[in-house]
């Protein structure tokens, strides 16, 4: 019998490495794609989605039994994405964020093959253009609805706002998305 996400998370709380491996396997592609759609950058998406798994590992013991795992995990991931965008505004890049004496935690990124890299870059660039005019919360709301198929109530839990605010985010986000699609069609 396949263990539920919630059960796996509880096991991770008891430091079950196998449960962690299984949950990472289930969520890694989705987490990466969601991060990529919000951040518009492959490297950042890989780092931030891995950060989300690290947070998951470190705080699995505090996972509430009543919460749905996907809602809880998406909250971690989306908050990290929004935070990453905030921290990486162009003017912040001018000042180093981490103290120089701190050991680098991120190893150099794994290099994918050139063909795969080109396809990835193209898709992400297209998506970035499409979502360029959406605010981070609009992006998150639309993507959680479209990609993760979360309900407005679940998205409200992830974004920590009201259901009505989510509806407005989705409505405005989709309006911007449609404009971008029209522009793209006009350009082609």
């Amino acid at each position, binding site marked *: 019998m396949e263990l539920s996400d919630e059960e796996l998370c509880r096991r991770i709380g008891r430091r079950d490495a196998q449960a962690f491996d299984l949950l990472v396997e289930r969520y890694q592609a989705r987490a990466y*794609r969601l991060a990529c759609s919000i951040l518009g950058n492959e490297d950042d998406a890989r780092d931030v989605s891995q950060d989300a798994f690290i947070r998951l590992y470190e705080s699995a013991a505090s996972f509430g039994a009543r919460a749905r795992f996907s809602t809880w995990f998406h909250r971690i991931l989306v908050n990290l994405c929004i935070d990453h965008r905030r921290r990486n505004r162009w003017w912040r890049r001018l000042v180093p964020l981490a103290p120089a004496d701190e050991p680098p935690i991120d190893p150099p990124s794994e290099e994918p093959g050139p063909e795969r890299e080109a396809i990835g870059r193209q898709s992400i660039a297209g998506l970035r253009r499409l979502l360029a005019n959406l605010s981070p919360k609009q992006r998150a709301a639309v993507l959680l609805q*479209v*990609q993760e198929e979360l309900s407005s109530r679940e998205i409200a839990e992830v974004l920590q706002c009201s259901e009505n605010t989510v509806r407005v985010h989705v409505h405005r986000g989709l309006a911007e998305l449609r404009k971008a699609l029209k522009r793209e069609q006009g350009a082609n």
Partner: protein
Amino acid sequence: MITRHPDAALVPYLRGELSDEEGARVARHLEGCAACRAEADAAGAAMRELWRRVEGIPAPDPVQYRAGLYRRLEARRSAAQRRGQKTDEWSRTRIVGFSLGALAAAGVAALILTMRWSVHVAMPPLDQLASPDRIAQEAVMSGADIDMLRDYPIVEHLDLLENYDTIAHLDDLAPSAPASDENRS
């Protein structure tokens, strides 16, 4: 009939998230509003297109992705352990410092308390008991007593009030018959 276009409720309606009542209202509105029907169709199409593009993003190689994740997790663990060791040394230094400080503070407090207690319980010297100030104070008090003697008739009259017979016949006392000094003496 909804008079305003239910813009933000269209997607939740398409996803079946609305309550029966709200869903019925949006459905009635859509029946009579071609603009909102077109809006709902366009929103659905945009969502499908977005889904197609997001799914088109190539997922990272799962083995490499996980290897990178575990390396980072391990690096964090080691860093936390190093920090923990530093914290332990720092805590030990602080504990010793705090203990010494607390001991010194307790010693000073005990000394102050002992001194204050001895001041309270010590008998004053005899010459202080009969100090000139104290004698002057007593003289003032005696003087006040002597002054009372000057108003002796009043005092005597007050004494009369303690006589039960007098109290019983208070009404009989003549209001305008002050006792003469001769009678009293």
